[in-house]
């Protein structure tokens, strides 16, 4: 589904990533873990086009997308959520999801200002679809609330609904459990499994090891900008290099 081939990223003299290569298998949940500063979020930013890579290529279903801007990658089905939740705070919850449906609709400046009949029916379709997505993440009752007033946990759910609106082929989640309490994290785990069951490939950066071990089929471990290990959760748990990186030498 998503392949990273020899990704490197330098900021001036600082090498943030070097020689990262792995595949995210179609239909899987892949976890990317590693200690703080390992380069996990940078890797996400390179994969989604926020930064260009210094070397290497990003391939989506075999197609090189390294040169595409974020909106171009979103149109191809590569969608992300943010660690610190990037919602449209002054808009309502429903409107946030409707922005997510931007790529699923086409009405432009003229159709919108003159209220063309097709624009009106498209608008109705978007609104209904947005409500379905709020149902999917279990916050339909918050539809009319201003997004900036949501709690962190609800904001996270909204961000996921908005990302799902793009009908992603692959969803990249940057620390989805950050800032959530344990019951919210358990709900999140269920939600991520339901997303996978819809046929969406999921890749997530996460610190919460219980969550990662519970839901991931495959793990990639980063340390200091390089790949340390790759394998199933069980293999990773027993990998001596990983244990050393996390706990230090004995």
């Amino acid at each position, binding site marked *: 589904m998503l392949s990273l081939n020899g990704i490197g990223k330098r900021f001036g003299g600082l090498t943030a990533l070097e020689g990262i290569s792995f595949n995210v298998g179609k239909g899987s949940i892949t976890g990317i873990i590693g200690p703080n500063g390992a380069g996990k979020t940078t890797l996400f930013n390179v994969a989604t086009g926020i930064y260009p890579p210094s070397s290497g290529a990003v391939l989506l279903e075999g197609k090189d997308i390294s040169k595409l801007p974020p909106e171009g990658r979103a149109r191809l089905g590569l969608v992300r959520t943010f660690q610190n939740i990037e919602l*449209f705070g002054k808009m309502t919850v429903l409107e946030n999801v409707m922005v997510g449906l*931007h790529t699923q*609709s086409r009405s432009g*400046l003229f159709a919108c200002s*003159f209220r063309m009949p097709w624009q009106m029916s498209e608008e109705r379709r978007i609104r209904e679809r947005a409500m379905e997505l709020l149902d999917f993440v279990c916050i339909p009752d918050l539809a009319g609330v201003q997004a900036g007033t949501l709690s962190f946990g609800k904001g996270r759910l909204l961000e996921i609904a908005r990302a799902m609106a793009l009908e992603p082929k692959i969803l990249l989640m940057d620390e989805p459990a950050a800032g959530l309490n344990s019951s919210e994290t358990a709900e999140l785990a269920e939600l991520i499994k339901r997303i996978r069951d819809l046929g969406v490939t999921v890749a997530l950066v996460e610190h919460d090891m219980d969550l990662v071990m519970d839901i991931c089929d495959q793990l990639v471990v980063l340390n200091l900008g390089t790949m340390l290990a790759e394998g199933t959760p069980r293999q990773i748990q027993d990998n001596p290099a990983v244990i050393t990186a996390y706990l230090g030498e004995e």
Partner: protein
Amino acid sequence: MKSDRIKFLVFALVVLLVPLPLSGGYLTNVLIFVGINSVLALGLNLLLGYAGQISLGQAAFFGLGAYGSGVLTTAYGVNPWLAMVAVALCVALFAFAIGFPVLRLKGHYLAMATLGVGVIVNIALNETVELTGGPSGLSGIPNLTIGSLTFDSDLKNYYLVWVFALGMILLSLNLVNSRFGRGLRAIHDSEVAARVMGVNARLMKVQVFTLSAFMSAIMGSLYCHVMTFISPNSFGFHFSVELLTMIVIGGLGSVYGSILGALLLTLLPEMLRTFQDYDIIVYGLLLITMTIYLPGGLVEGIPALLRRLVPARKVTEGSDA
């Protein structure tokens, strides 16, 4: 949706009935300019209040519209309606072309670049004397006509301008409550997130910039035919700041706020003639006071004030208004 329609119909009705008791007096004349300024403020509000992109050069597009129509109809005898459409399209094209480089800039840099566009256009209007008449202005511009009807009185011009204004207000209301309007507000709130959601931010910013230039140019054409005399002074930096003050006072990100701001800032100087030379200071103070104490503008401030002053039960009846 339905209440929006009713609100607009009530507003349109008020606009159409207001001049009847005034019987074409001085106030009618002032209200013509309220109509023109409303659309100019609205155009800027779509850009700044919705998309979050500042422009300090809006007066330039207004001026290009006025001078385009003025020159074409006086020197070349072009049909005024044809000139209006042709000039508005050219101004829109101009805005579209400069929009791509200019709107890549953000914040202060964008303000400086648009300010520069405004200043350059104003200098051009002053210096191309053989075409525009330079600082002494351009006179003898004909009134608009439809068949045997000539728009030569304040009352006729009032309806001429406000029919255009109401049309553009309606289209803007449609626009802001649509896919396009949501895209603009998303760019305003978080451009990175909007782009990750597949919103083509760069193009949409240029589109709304072009739209605001188009609206301003149409109003410029109407202005020159209503006034029959124009001079570059009316289209300078001073007027761009006045437009900015209108929307900050009325309410950023509100269609009706633009109109309220235009109404207040057009009526006020007429009433406070003694301030004339110092009005830029008054605008400055108003801008500062509003951004500190009432960032939502009067459209948010007045209902909030009412809620404080009027006992609770009365407000629940009137809160929908």
